[in-house]
């Protein structure tokens, strides 16, 4: 093995480290720094936090954010648990529907569906109008915090469903059979064997839901629920200005809470990654459903499907509706909104394509480089790059954007624009936010490429660089492409960093356009049309990513069959 570190590797390491320092670590440190500094005396202080907790609005916001996140976990669990149970325990034809339920919500950013959901489930939405006309009562689905909980749990329950199903599928059936063999059965067996083995998967999903909801800015903002932490931070910064410490204090609370939730989950799951300790992993024994069990299962699955599809349906209807207000269905249908967004504000779409592809390209360049350095180079502190890049997961978009505003507002571009509000900064912010996903995809791809394939190339006379270009990168292609489209699709609909960093409408992408349109009743139709376009981009990207992964998996299978 070569033990020396090449000049190229050192250079690459330095450039990436510098990038992460300037665009991730630096801004976050800035945010923490400001939160702990007295504005007047410039000395370290906890006064800002004291102010935070002595203001009743902030205490309420803090409580609300916590309550909404916890309740979202509860509601998402109620949706996900029966679905996971049906797929893992039964030979159930409806499993196909359940699998689609696992990604349908994720292709629509929650804030996009939020307004449309009000037209279905709101105070004067279709469902409540119908209920009042027929039964004389209403259900406050969308009142205040309820609305946020409702929208968020419908959007995020797949995290619990996917993680829990994966954990259940990882339980080898011999785990259960050996218990039966020793005399155990029924609920006792479930409690002692299946439940503890599936728990880590459930917790992993639940923590993810909690953090996502806790950090989310778009949904409460669009539902006009301002007494939560993220909206408060946004409102403080955008109305009072970047010198007001409260926004930073909230940002710190958001980060600390995210990290704490991750930490608690990590501690609870310590040494409990059972998937690797079981040898088989063929999933539990499945049995056929009885007739009434099947009726029950289908009812639950179809009811869930209807609820899950309701934002999509409502958004589609809204995008084609002339006027839809105080009525169960829209008055009439039109394609005018689509015409409007394509002719009057095409920049929303073109900007989105430019920003999202820019961010995705940046992500795979960074992802491949970091993966290569971590897995192949001998640089001592190479793993730090991976940790730092992954830590972006715990930094909400809002916090990163606040950090950018603080760090880059004093710098002016030659054309007089402030660096922080230059569109390229948004591209970088989006790239940093999505880097963890792209990095994981690239790392996984590179781990599949055996070192001996590279050594064979070098042995036949190819240089290191040529080997990377001719052998390593082509073999990683599937994973890289998957990483690219995932980054692209999710960056295209990121709202929290976007609304902080964009200062002019001409620079604005889709997410921002949707936000602006949805502010006024007359703009809703166009907003919904943009929303549908966003959904199509994300859905297309998710599908493409899935296909690339499948393709490279198949390729590997073929080549391993040849061996």
């Amino acid at each position, binding site marked *: 093995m070569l033990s020396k570190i090449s000049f190229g590797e050192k250079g690459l390491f330095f450039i990436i480290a510098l990038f992460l320092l300037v665009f991730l670590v630096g801004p976050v440190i800035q945010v923490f720094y400001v939160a702990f500094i007295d504005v007047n005396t410039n000395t370290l202080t906890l006064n800002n936090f004291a102010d935070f907790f002595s203001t009743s609005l902030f205490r309420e916001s803090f409580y609300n954010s916590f309550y909404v996140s916890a309740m979202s976990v509860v509601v998402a669990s109620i949706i996900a648990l029966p679905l996971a149970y049906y797929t893992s325990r039964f030979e159930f034809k409806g499993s196909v529907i359940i699998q689609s339920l696992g990604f349908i919500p994720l292709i629509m950013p929650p804030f996009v569906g939020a307004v449309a959901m009000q037209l279905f489930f709101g105070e004067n939405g279709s469902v409540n109008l119908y209920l009042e006309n027929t039964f004389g009562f209403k259900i406050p689905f969308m009142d205040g915090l309820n609305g946020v909980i409702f929208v968020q749990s419908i959007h995020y329950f797949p995290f619990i469903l996917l993680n829990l199903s994966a954990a259940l599928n990882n339980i080898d059936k011999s785990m259960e*059979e*050996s218990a039966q*063999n*020793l005399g155990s059965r029924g609920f006792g067996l479930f409690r002692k064997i299946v439940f503890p*083995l599936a728990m880590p998967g459930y917790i992993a999903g639940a923590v993810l839901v909690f953090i996502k909801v806790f950090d989310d800015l778009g949904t409460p903002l669009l539902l006009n629920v301002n007494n939560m932490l993220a909206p408060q931070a946004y409102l403080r910064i955008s109305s009072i200005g970047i010198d007001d410490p409260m926004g930073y204090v909230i940002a710190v609370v958001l980060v600390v809470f995210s990290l704490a939730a991750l930490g608690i989950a990590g501690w609870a799951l310590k*040494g409990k990654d059972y998937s690797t*300790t*079981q040898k088989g992993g063929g999933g539990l024994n499945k049995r056929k459903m009885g007739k009434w069990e099947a009726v029950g299962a289908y009812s639950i699955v179809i009811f869930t499907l209807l609820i899950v599809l309701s934002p999509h349906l409502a958004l589609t209807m809204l995008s084609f509706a002339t006027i839809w207000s105080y009525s169960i269905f829209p008055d009439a249908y039109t394609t005018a909104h689509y015409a409007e967004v394509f002719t009057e504000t095409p920049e929303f779409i073109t900007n989105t394509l430019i920003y999202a592809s820019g961010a995705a390209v940046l992500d795979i360049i960074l992802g491949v480089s970091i993966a290569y350095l971590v897995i192949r180079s001998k640089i001592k502190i190479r793993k730090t790059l991976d940790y730092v890049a992954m830590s972006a997961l715990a930094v909400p978009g809002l916090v990163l954007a606040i950090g950018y505003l603080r760090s880059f507002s004093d710098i002016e571009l030659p054309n007089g624009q402030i660096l922080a509000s230059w569109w390229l900064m948004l591209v970088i912010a989006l790239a940093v936010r999505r880097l963890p996903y792209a990095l994981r995809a690239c790392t996984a791809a590179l781990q599949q490429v055996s070192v001996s394939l590279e050594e064979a190339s070098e042995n036949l006379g190819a240089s290191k660089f040529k080997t990377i270009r001719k052998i390593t990168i082509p073999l990683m292609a599937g994973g890289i492409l998957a990483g690219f489209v995932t980054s692209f699709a999710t960056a295209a609909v990121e709202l929290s960093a976007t609304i902080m960093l964009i200062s002019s409408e001409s620079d604005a992408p889709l997410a921002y356009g949707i936000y602006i349109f949805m502010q006024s009743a007359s703009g809703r139709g166009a907003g919904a049309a943009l929303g549908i376009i966003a959904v199509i981009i994300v859905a297309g990207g998710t599908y493409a990513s899935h296909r690339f992964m499948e393709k490279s998996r198949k390729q590997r299978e073929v080549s391993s069959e040849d061996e």
Partner: protein
Amino acid sequence: MNKTGIQLKNIELSFGNTKVIKNISMDIKNGEFFSFLGPSGCGKSTLLRLIAGFETCQKGQVIIEGKDITKLPPWERKVGMVFQSYALWPHMSIRENIEFGLKEQKLNMMEINYKVDKVLELVGLKEFASRYPNQLSGGQQQRVALARTVVTEPKVLLLDEPLSNLDASLRVQMRQELLALQRSLNLTTIFVTHDQEEANTTSDRIALLKGGVVQQIDCPTHLYDKPANLFVANFIGSANILKGNIRKEDNLSIFESEEGFKIPVDSKTIGSCSLLLRPHTLNITQDKDFHMDGVIKNKEFLGSMVRYFVNIGTREIIVDSIHSKGSEVLGINEKIYLKTNKAESYVLNNE
């Protein structure tokens, strides 16, 4: 002592339209170490899982110590099974794993602790009781899986390829431990394996299966010496099998192979049949009196013996010749003659 431990009666089992077990019957004696041996897909594991209650048969009965258990669920059968993957629960310590079955039996804690301590001592893992499965080596996990099962004092012990996840040297050691444990507990045991060496070294009797059908049930030496058919002859040990005819010539039975070699045999049958010649029963000679003349095409020195691959006409015949110190190894392309041993050759029906 020799009363029947496990009885299988006319078992038929299908998965969908695929028949996996075809009318299998056998009696396994109390205290016997019995193997199900066969290539993958022969139905041996399915048969074992049927006895444990994890598969259901469409026809037939499973009887243990005179009691029909065919319809009983797994948790009421009291047959201990050790899984191929060991199936140790990763969220429980070794002690918790072993206690599990005893707790299901609702024994009191004092009794449980006593039994667990005893079995831990038996498998030599006393100091590992508080560890978790992923902190143990493969061999140790294997012992825990065994301990977890035998501690419940099952009527029979079912072992599903228990050694297949161990490396070669450990496998030999573990099979000896396994046998010693079985002897000391005098536990009726069924051992499923595809490895004939494992089956031969441990078993009192072996059932050799192929395609869901029992080919032969016998002790290891009989399977080797007197195979019931060509499959058994080929599966157990190395074999040279010649096809041909037996006819009487001056009161002697002469086997004439399809290739035209004439070999004297001890056999009452006449007509079309096959002749099994085990490699170690053939002798290489330079004496022209013998009819099989050939050329050495390849050789493998295996320490205790040399294995020659001899071309006789178009046939390749394997010959194992015992190596003794200083004896010379024949060279490739050397011309030789083969001598067969009448008492050692065995006539089989063509099937």
